[in-house]
């Protein structure tokens, strides 16, 4: 079992931290292996940011992600750039207020969440990445709820812990509800059972 | 009656003449003799005027001369312990 995951957006959204939390959940709390890499641009804020995560039950050899099984897009630019690389049958997760699904690749499943809006409702826009982590956890089931909660807990400073755990749960519950409804779109393909594929 | 004297290690001397030039009481002169490296080391020509101030030693770039005072101003044949 090896899964290639890419999380992309713009700098300041906490893209790298979200990948870090997921990697931590896999490598430290589920006893598996995870390798995270990231792309750096010269801009600290507002530029493109992307992190790649490979999780596996075996040591990871090739560190980079070339065709993700799971792609999380938190910006239009990220969607445009990375969605064509997706693996057939892959899962695309988008920040639905920020990404317009033009030229959607075939044979993928798409799930959207208004993560930024949820984060604002929780009082801090910056936790949108953790909302996304919760959503990712529920939708992909590639990592357990408990492992992710443990990873969020030890990745954020004490004083922001509760806020982040709330954000995680908000995304997680929204994901579970959405799963009942099924993917937003499945284009040109048969419906694929999530469990079988992931 | 001199108050002091100088000790010269002639073989270290490179003959720059600083000690001769800057001795306040004009005690020294470069010798006509050579040392092994062909330089003219200084020698005392006015020993009685030496105060043992060691200005010659301060100027010597080659640590070849050193001025010292006699204990209690006495001239000593036993050797001064500067």
């Amino acid at each position: 079992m090896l899964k290639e995951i890419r999380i992309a957006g713009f700098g300041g959204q906490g893209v790298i931290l979200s990948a870090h939390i997921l990697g931590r959940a896999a490598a430290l709390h589920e006893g598996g292996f995870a390798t995270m890499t990231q792309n750096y641009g010269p801009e600290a804020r507002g530029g493109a940011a992307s992190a790649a995560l490979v999780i596996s039950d075996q040591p990871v050899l090739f560190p980079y992600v070339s065709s993700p099984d799971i792609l999380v897009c938190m910006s239009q630019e990220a969607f445009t750039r990375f969605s064509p690389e997706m693996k057939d049958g892959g899962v695309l997760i988008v920040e639905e207020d920020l990404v317009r699904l033009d030229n959607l690749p075939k044979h993928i499943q798409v799930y959207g969440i208004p993560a930024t809006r949820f984060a604002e409702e929780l009082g801090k826009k910056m936790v949108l990445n953790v909302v996304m982590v919760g959503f990712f956890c529920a939708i992909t089931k590639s990592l357990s709820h408990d492992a992710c909660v443990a990873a969020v807990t030890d990745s954020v400073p004490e004083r922001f812990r509760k806020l982040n755990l709330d954000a995680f749960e908000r995304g997680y519950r929204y994901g579970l509800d959405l799963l009942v409804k099924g993917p937003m779109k499945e284009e040109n393909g048969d419906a694929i059972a999530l469990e079988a594929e992931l | 009656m001199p108050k002091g004297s100088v000790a010269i290690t002639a073989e270290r001397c490179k003959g720059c003449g600083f000690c001769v030039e800057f001795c306040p009481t004009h005690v020294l002169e470069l010798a006509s003799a050579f040392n092994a490296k062909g330089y003219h080391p200084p020698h005392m020509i006015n020993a009685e005027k030496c105060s043992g101030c060691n200005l010659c030693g301060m100027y010597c770039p080659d640590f070849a001369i050193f001025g010292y005072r006699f204990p209690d101003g006495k001239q000593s044949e036993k050797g001064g312990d500067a």
Partner: protein
Amino acid sequence: MSSVELHVHNPVEDLLRQDRIPTIWCPGCGIGTTVNSFAHALLGLGIDLKKTSIVSGIGCSGRVSGYMNLDSFHTTHGRAIPFATGLKLANPELNVIVYSGDGDLTSIGGNHLIHAARRNIDLMVVCVNNMIYAMTGGQAAATTPGTSMSTTTPYGAFEPELNMPQLVDAAGACFVARWTAFHVKQLERTMAKALNKKGFRFIEVLSPCPTYYQRKNNLGDALAAMVDYKKRSKIKNGCNTWETALLPGGDIIVGEFVDREREDYLTLMRRQLGSNYTEFPPQAEEEAERCCSEC
């Protein structure tokens, strides 16, 4: 010579590695003269010589470290100050003196000079300025004044020369002075004063280079240079360092120009770090292993 001399002892010799004398310096080179002042300053203060290190770069003056009977570090060209910085910071108990030349400290090592002064690293820096690259054969230096001749300025120099006291003053040195090799007593006193001070201290000493600078510029021998220093020097303690430039034939402004109080690097560091800095005594077992047979 009478037997008298055999019993007298030049105290400077205690500070020299006897087995390294005679020095490689040319006849009349003033570097050795400055060493006398330095040695007397050290001896007069009764500083713990065991805890005193001397660091040099490359060049004629760079050889001073190797003649001193101290912990001696003869480093690479221009890098005496950063080496000394590491030495001092990793063992603040050490008295660290940098002794090097004008080309080494202000040209290839100029950036380190500026930044050590800015940081106010607790070092005493002695720069013997002979106004030329002597060990490599008389090439122009950043300090070569006016239109002097050198082997790389065969028609006379035309680059403006560097005024070291002005530079290190501007960069933040807490003590800045200049003397010449003629001023042996004043230099000794200034060195003693600087050795007693904490922070970045800089002493420039003009010194004759009869083989290159004097000869190339028809300035006579070393003795003539010393007499010239005596004639042209004007003692101006506290002089604004902007007014201390060295020009051929002009006044040589000497004295103690800057003496200010500024907290040194480690003091500032400890204050800023506060409780984030923890004293760290070595492990007990480590101590035992380090012990030498003398203990």
